[in-house]
């Protein structure tokens, strides 16, 4: 800051000096004298700064002399104000890239029986070499009462997305916390985590199909941790409902509401668990959904109505003696159940046939990740969806429901040279398209973080 001001002042002084030299008048001579004085002053201050810098470097470079051992306690040097979260701005940058090989064209990807917006980010993404999202997180305490954090995602298409940007209270006490802004919803287990914290490169099919990969909303969240021995937490959210299964509209009031409850504890010193139940209700109005009509053409439908999603999640972790450093194991599973009811206009661009709509769908995944030696982890995920039979009312027979049950199995091998770097190989047998050919997906990716120390969540 100081240096900046100095440099600017010096530049100004030089400019002024140059201008003055062109027209030497008594006025400008006085000005020049002033500038010279100013310059001399700044040079003195610069020299002083340089000397201080050299002294500091010398002090640091000198090997710490072993002080003579003595009985009285060592004298207290300056107490460092450093405390977790008590310092300035925490900055974290996630760098990620990948190379992928898929048997089927990712452009043809769909999850059979689940109608999603045409721009939904589902499937394996692009083939070949590609950059994954670059994520920048800034976080700091604002004042004694608030903390702020923002995460920006730079997509490989050179777009900037505000993934999260929120403020939250730090001084309410009584286990209460309020958050406002855009944030990842607390539903389920994976949803609240940033994707680089996931154990697999992609979201489970159930998340892609029923939450549009990850549900983040603009709104308010109230969290409460109960004053009990066992961990018990309630979170309630109201928000705009801007992302799937909601849709962004210009309504007053809330478009989505979330309730979640989680409990967790240790069993002995080596085992721990967390389990929860969440409920999401979101309204959609004129939500565009991609579908295929009975003639096999791609059409866009419009859905107006409400969605309810129930999620049951459970995580179990094992670490011998509570020390995960050598070996550890994590088992997690979630079950999602989604109901959508309202009106569906089939083929908005052509037929535009309105009718009632109701669907009841569900899905689950189960995954285990084992760290068999330091730095190496191995994981297996298996998942399945139940598309159900949507009731189309007057439009029955206009759309092709497809056939088959979406299924997927994924294998993962991970090498973590340090806490901050990861190289992951993932192989998936993907039958999300239902009946028909199976997609085989190979993925090699890196994920690295630089900046502030990432926290080890549960």
């Amino acid at each position: 800051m100081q240096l900046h001001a100095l440099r600017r002042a010096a530049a100004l002084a030089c400019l002024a000096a140059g201008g003055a030299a062109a027209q030497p008048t008594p006025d400008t001579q006085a000005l020049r004298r002033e500038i010279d004085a100013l310059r001399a002053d700044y040079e003195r201050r610069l020299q002083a700064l340089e000397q201080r810098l050299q002294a500091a470097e010398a002090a640091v470079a000198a090997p710490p002399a072993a002080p003579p051992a003595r009985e009285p306690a060592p004298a207290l040097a300056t107490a460092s104000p450093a405390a977790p979260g008590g310092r300035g701005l925490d900055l974290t940058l996630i760098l990620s890239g990948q190379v992928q090989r898929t048997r089927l064209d990712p452009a043809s990807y769909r999850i059979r029986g689940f109608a999603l917006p045409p721009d939904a980010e589902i499937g394996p993404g692009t083939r070949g070499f590609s950059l994954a999202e670059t994520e920048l997180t800034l976080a700091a305490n604002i004042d004694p009462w608030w903390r702020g954090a923002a995460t920006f995602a730079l997509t490989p298409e050179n777009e900037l997305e505000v993934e999260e940007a929120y403020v939250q209270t730090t001084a309410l006490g009584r286990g209460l916390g309020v958050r406002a802004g855009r944030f990842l919803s607390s539903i389920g287990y994976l949803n609240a985590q940033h994707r680089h914290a996931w154990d697999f490169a992609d979201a489970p099919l159930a998340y892609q199909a029923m939450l549009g990969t990850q549900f983040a909303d603009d709104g308010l969240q109230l969290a409460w941790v109960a004053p009990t021995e066992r961990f018990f937490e309630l979170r309630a959210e109201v928000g705009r409902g801007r992302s799937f299964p909601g849709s962004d509209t210009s309504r007053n009031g809330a478009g989505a509401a979330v309730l979640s409850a989680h409990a967790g504890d240790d069993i002995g010193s080596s085992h721990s668990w967390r389990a929860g139940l969440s409920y999401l209700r979101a309204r959609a109005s004129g939500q565009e959904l991609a579908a295929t009509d009975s003639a096999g053409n791609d059409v866009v439908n419009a859905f107006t109505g409400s969605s309810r999603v129930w999620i049951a999640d459970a995580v179990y972790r094992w670490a011998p003696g509570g020390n995960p450093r050598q070996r550890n194991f994590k088992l997690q599973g979630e079950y999602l159940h989604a109901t959508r009811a309202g009106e569906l206009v089939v083929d908005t661009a052509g037929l535009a046939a309105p009718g009632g709509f109701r669907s009841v769908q569900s899905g689950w995944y189960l995954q285990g990740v084992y760290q068999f030696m330091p730095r190496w982890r191995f994981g297996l995920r298996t998942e399945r969806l139940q598309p159900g039979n949507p009731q189309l009312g007057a439009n029955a027979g206009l759309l092709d429901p497809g056939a088959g049950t979406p299924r997927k199995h994924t294998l993962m091998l991970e090498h973590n040279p340090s806490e901050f770097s990861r190289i992951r190989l993932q192989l998936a047998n993907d039958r999300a398209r239902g009946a028909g050919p199976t997609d085989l997906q190979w993925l090699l990716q890196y994920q690295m973080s630089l900046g502030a120390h990432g926290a080890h969540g549960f």
Partner: protein
Amino acid sequence: MISHCKSWIGGLALACAGLALPAQAALRVVACEPEWAALAQELGGALVEASALTTAQQDPHRIQARPSLIARVRNADLLVCTGAELEAGWLPLLLQQSGNAKVQPGQPGHLAAADHVRKLEIPASADRSQGDVHAAGNPHIHTDPRNIALVATQLTRRLQQLDAARAGEYAGRGAAFQQRWQQAVTRWSAQAAPLRGLPVVSQHKGYVYLYDWLGLKEVAVLEPKPGVEPSVAHLQSVLATLQATPARMVVSSAYQDPRPSEWLARNGAVPMARLPFTVGGSEAARDLTALFDDTVARLLAAAGTR
């Protein structure tokens, strides 16, 4: 019927008393590491209810922010941690999720021990290419008992501040502890005199404060960089170093993988000193005094000078 009612009312009154009790009960001190829980117990006695979030079998750098830990921080009146970024990977998460305003940094209910001692090994730059170095200096301050005394002074002050009604009792307990501790430090220093100047190898840079106190010289470290697991290549290079400058022992902690130290002990014919590191790290190290008794005894045994 009436007697029934009476017993009901009695039961209700008892239940009410039971509910009311926690309000006037002991101050709940939650420590990030076992040594601070033990210190709080020494200084608070029956006035406090002290517990640690981690054990001596766990690596304090690598702790998962488990739900049970969030619940413990939620209910704490005073949080005592090492600080100096030792808990940077998990404590911020616990603090944010606990919703407990009393123990946030800067509050009287948050004590960072490392803020109150002279720190060693403060790096010129905290570049991650140097491994998991802490910008604030080496955080393992509790391995020097003189630091324990400094932290004890601060902890007594905090206990008095938070539980002002019993400030006198804390003052008495604090003074008694300081006197006891000063005598013990003198005893340990005398016992450990033969260790002065001995060259040692450490598995992790976890004992710089202990070495500083007893005058041991660290000639090599098995971890190539702080927090990075020892590799075979690096162990070989340490072995080569030892041919030029022989060490008298290889020092590791209870929570660490014993194999790298065992390998060096076998191949370099160096005795092993497996130290408890903190309270609970060995059978003997049941409290703070026993921790240093055991540590000094194990060092002397390894040096063969007992």
